[in-house]
């Protein structure tokens, strides 16, 4: 590796290390894990530096890598609590609605307020676990759209899918994530299943 690159990557640690660490810690809740994720992020950044085309700022680029590392972390741990067989068939959303198109299980009231700092941490934990439970392609499209904020046209191009397909996948992802968050504690069990 070139010396200049080494100097550059070490300067990144001083410049962005704390912000990346803070972001990671809010999502994984363990200092050691957050430190590891930050380290992995810098390693991946150095190794893929030639692919960084300067379209975004260095900071945005590093955060982009870290977000994927956080999701990978949750994917690896796949807790049994979240990986229960409660997704129905993830490719089939018919179970969400009755034949007339009404809610089969009505959306519950959510008391969670991720605007408050403590609740943000809890919400992130649930959110990333639920996200890691989605089928891979569904999760990828959701991450591109909602976490990275890409436009659907860009996502279609990257994944070589049609815009209709993209909308269907995003809809599915939102339905499944919403349901998962409700099941893990965002919702209040006050509604009954209606047929």
């Amino acid at each position, binding site marked *: *590796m070139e010396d200049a690159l080494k100097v550059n990557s070490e300067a990144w640690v001083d410049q962005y290390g704390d912000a990346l660490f803070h972001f990671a810690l809010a999502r994984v809740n363990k200092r050691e894990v957050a430190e590891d994720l930050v380290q992995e992020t810098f390693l991946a950044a150095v190794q893929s530096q030639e692919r960084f085309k300067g379209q975004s700022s260095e*900071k945005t680029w590093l955060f982009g890598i870290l977000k994927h590392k956080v999701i990978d972390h949750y994917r690896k741990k796949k807790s049994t609590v979240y990986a229960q067989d409660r997704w129905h068939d993830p490719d089939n959303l018919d179970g969400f609605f009755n034949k007339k198109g009404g809610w089969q299980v009505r959306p519950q009231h959510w008391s969670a307020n991720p605007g408050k700092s403590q609740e943000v941490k809890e919400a992130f934990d649930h959110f990333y676990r639920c996200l890691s439970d989605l089928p891979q392609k569904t999760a990828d499209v959701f991450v591109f759209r909602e976490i990275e904020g890409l436009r659907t046209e860009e996502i279609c191009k990257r994944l070589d899918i049609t815009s209709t397909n993209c909308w269907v996948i995003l809809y599915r992802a939102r339905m499944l994530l919403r349901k998962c968050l409700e099941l893990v504690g965002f919702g209040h069990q006050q509604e009954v299943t209606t047929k």
Partner: protein
Amino acid sequence: MKHWMFSCKDVSQKISQSMDGQLPFHHHMAIRMHLLMCRYCARFRRQLFMLRKISRHTDADLTHCDLPDKLSPEAKERIKETLHSLP
């Protein structure tokens, strides 16, 4: 439940679609009318936006001094050493 032609299933799809692009004006109107009468779909819509808020929440704008959690000096050194030892 059916209000103004759209079922809850239709509305849920249209709400999601509206978050990713333009919907025809009459679809927007039909959704709004439906939401006025269906609190479950209104709830659903709020929750999708909350999902977006959580997804896009970032503290990346915080400046160095604002950060409550910082990398320890030891962790920084360790990371630098790892980067330095890369082939």
